[in-house]
């Protein structure tokens, strides 16, 4: 056997290994969810019911939408945003205020989403200059939270005399609108990242910034696109949340940022960028919501639930990391 033959055999071997680990990485979480579903249906009373599954999906939808949006940032190699909560609450407040003022929830939703996107664009621009996303979004989060609290005087913002809950409660075939929006948003995000130029650029920028820049991909432009997608998701999630609650306060949604980050990580998108997909993050969010709901039905107290969730997140993150490492060796 000549050396070239040996090398080519070796490479084939490696690509085979890579394919195998990739397959495992892609299917591990869906299989796990199915497993949890089957086990819970068999052993947890009340689980296998339309209402339960609907509530799991409803729980998933808001975190899921933001997780899908966040994937764009993570994919582009910009880690993740730590300012989700503040932006979402701000945009929710705008929704209720504009709704109160105009009495039209569609105008309110449009203004709220535009507000979220504008905030996101500013952050995207600063990150695009080359500053660290974690710091910029943390700082922006503090500023936005402070502004929201000052504008609302720290009080509950409530819509009175107008009905703004339509987006949260409207149902088609007994399934609430947020679930449809979540599914559609994920599908559009998947199409954009996998089948368009912008999506490719986001992937390439995340894989290797220098190479991407040398091949004519603008880091600034691509980063701004990623932040646009992300802030759009925040705006949508905020409108849905505010519609559901019919009120909002500066201190609301304290856990949203970490839930979203956990969903992206558990889904299997690499923090280093370039490897991942919005669908993975959506599944990550679904998985977290499912085990949370199962534990709620088993009446496990909040403390234990949090603990189990932590164990699961750490375990999954480690396993996914090891698989990725094995695949690229």
């Amino acid at each position, binding site marked *: 056997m000549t050396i070239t033959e040996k090398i080519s055999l070796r490479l084939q071997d490696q690509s085979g290994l890579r394919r195998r680990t990739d397959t495992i990485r892609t299917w591990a979480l869906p299989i796990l969810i199915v497993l949890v579903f089957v086990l819970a249906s068999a052993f947890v009373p009340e689980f296998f019911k339309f209402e339960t599954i609907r509530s799991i999906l409803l729980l998933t939808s808001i975190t899921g939408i933001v997780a899908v949006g966040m994937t764009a940032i993570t994919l582009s190699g910009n880690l993740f945003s730590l300012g989700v909560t503040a932006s979402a609450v701000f945009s929710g407040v705008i929704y209720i205020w504009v709704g109160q003022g105009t009495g039209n929830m569609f105008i309110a939703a449009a203004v709220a989403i535009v507000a979220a996107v504008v905030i996101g664009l500013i952050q995207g621009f600063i990150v695009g200059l080359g500053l660290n996303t974690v710091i910029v979004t943390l700082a922006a989060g503090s500023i936005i939270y402070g502004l929201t609290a000052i504008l609302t005087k720290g009080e509950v913002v409530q819509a009175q005399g107008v009905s703004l809950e339509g987006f949260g409660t409207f149902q088609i075939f007994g399934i609430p609108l947020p679930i449809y929006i979540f599914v559609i948003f994920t599908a559009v995000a998947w199409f954009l990242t996998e089948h368009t130029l912008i999506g490719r650029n986001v992937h390439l920028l995340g894989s290797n910034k220098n190479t991407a820049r040398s091949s004519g991909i603008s880091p600034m432009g691509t980063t701004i696109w990623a932040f646009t997608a992300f802030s759009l998701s925040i705006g949508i999630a905020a409108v849905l949340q505010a519609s559901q609650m019919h009120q909002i306060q500066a201190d609301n949604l304290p856990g949203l940022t970490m839930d979203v980050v*956990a969903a992206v990580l558990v889904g299997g998108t690499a923090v280093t960028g370039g490897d991942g997909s919005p669908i993975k993050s959506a599944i990550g969010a679904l998985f977290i919501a499912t085990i949370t709901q199962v534990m709620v039905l088993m009446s496990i107290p909040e403390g234990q639930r949090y603990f189990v969730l932590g164990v699961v997140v*750490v375990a999954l993150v480690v396993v996914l990391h090891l698989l990725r490492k094995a695949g690229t060796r």
Partner: protein
Amino acid sequence: MSSVGAWFKTYLLQIIVLILVLVSMYGLNPNFHVESSIERLIPLGVIAAGLAVTMIAGEFDLSIASMAAFSGAVAVALSGLGLLVSVIIAIVVGILLGMLQGWAIAKLGINSLVFTVGTLILLRGMTWLVCNGLAIRVDDITATDMFKVKIGFLTSLSIAGLVVIIGLGIFLSRTRWGRELYALGGGRHEAIAAGVRYNRGMIVAFGISGGCGALGGALVSAKGGSADPSALGVMLVAALSAVLVGGISLAGGRGTMVSAFLGFAIIAMLSAGRAGLGTKAFVSELFIGLLLLVVVLFDYFLSFVSERDRRNKLRKLAAAAA
């Protein structure tokens, strides 16, 4: 003289900001007390110091605030053994958990940002378990008295916190293991090639970070005599702001305990001044956010200018050579 000059140059921006904050706070509120604000926020300083150590080593410990909450809960839950004993146990547990975390990160070769997001949730869950989901209190309320004895204007606990920060400063700048953390943060591959032990560095860095988180949380609990499972979450943002405003680089290898302390002092003055004025907590949140953004933008601008100067110089040299 030149070393003093260099010292000032390094911390110039932070010192100017600190003076500006101090002057404006005194201007707004003549009754402003520097000592009491430092005293009240020493736990934040300790946590910021721990965060700084991992950042210098080029890593990141997002779990530090959860560690603080956990150890605060442990300290209160075990207070039957005597509060001092339980505080020491809590700190030892924190150090051990931190070392375990560092070991896992080194062994798995995993991004610490990712791993510590997981342990952030995990430690928070453990806190809930220890507290049984409720705020817990020390049975014997007088037990906290011994921590409130004042020496000068500082309580004994705060002095312990300050001693730890100074000790860390000496450790980082004067010992071999401390210098190795800088090497690992500044140029990881070069450091490992030169014989720095990566695993040991990670275990040391995260052990210190865990210990500092635990000490910070135990300080809060020991003073107040209670622990809340959902407390101290904001510590992460506050400590991170302090460290970054102090000028410690997220890229690793840059910054000292002096920078961490200056950053902490700025944040402490801001929040204390705000409290003295009687405005709500979110106002200081707004200012901390703005300050953080201004500092990183300023830092970016400085490096941009120096990079441009360097390029221009190279261009001139090249032109001269041609």
